[in-house]
């Protein structure tokens, strides 16, 4: 079946502009996660959703970052007033549930470049 998809695959934006990154999880997966991967760095956890709820937003780097999920499916990560340090690959993952035994299925990522 279809995996996790993300759009756009690449985004170049000017400093100060807002961007929206989209994630379509695997159908039926109730848990959805956002991560950030900077060049040469590991994965930085940003936020997760169970259904449409995000119980823990403490991983978001600043108040310029926000995320929402609607209909228990598609999620959007929004970065306002982008800065050069926001340049990274943003990864989305989904899993059948929040239980610890579930592995996560990752999308291909969105490469964001802020000029």
């Amino acid at each position, binding site marked *: 079946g279809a995996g*996790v998809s993300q759009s756009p695959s690449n985004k170049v934006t000017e400093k100060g502009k807002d961007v929206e990154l989209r994630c379509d999880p695997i159908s039926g997966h109730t848990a959805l*996660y956002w*991560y950030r991967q900077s060049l040469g*760095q*590991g*994965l930085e*956890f940003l936020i*997760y959703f169970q259904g449409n709820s995000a119980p*823990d937003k403490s991983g978001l780097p600043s108040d310029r970052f926000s995320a929402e999920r609607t209909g228990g499916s598609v999620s959007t990560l929004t970065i306002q007033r982008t800065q050069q340090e926001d340049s990274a690959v943003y*990864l989305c*993952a989904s899993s059948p549930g929040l239980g*610890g*035994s579930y*592995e*996560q*299925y*990752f*999308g*291909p*990522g969105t490469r964001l470049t802020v000029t």
Partner: protein
Amino acid sequence: AQSVAQPEDQVNVAEGNPLTVKCTYSVSGNPYLFWYVQYPNRGLQFLLKYITGDNLVKGSYGFEAEFNKSQTSFHLKKPSALVSDSALYFCAVRGGEGMRFGAGTRLTVKP
């Protein structure tokens, strides 16, 4: 606080030799442990996981990992490396604070 450490940024092995990619973790309670692989220009793929039971876990592509509770380690191993195993490997732990990933280890297998 929950954390994962991958002490080696880079591991180089010759094709046909055994490989080990190290991972140690810190988590309260029983850990759920995972290995993921990232091939160039591709997303992360699940390799294997330890939830409970046998300490030796077998996964995709001939990889296996051994859970060692006393050493809080979950090292990834393969008896005979292939050039196609060259990739970035991430260890992850799932605990009360959610999923946390290590910084990654780049494995290079030379012919």
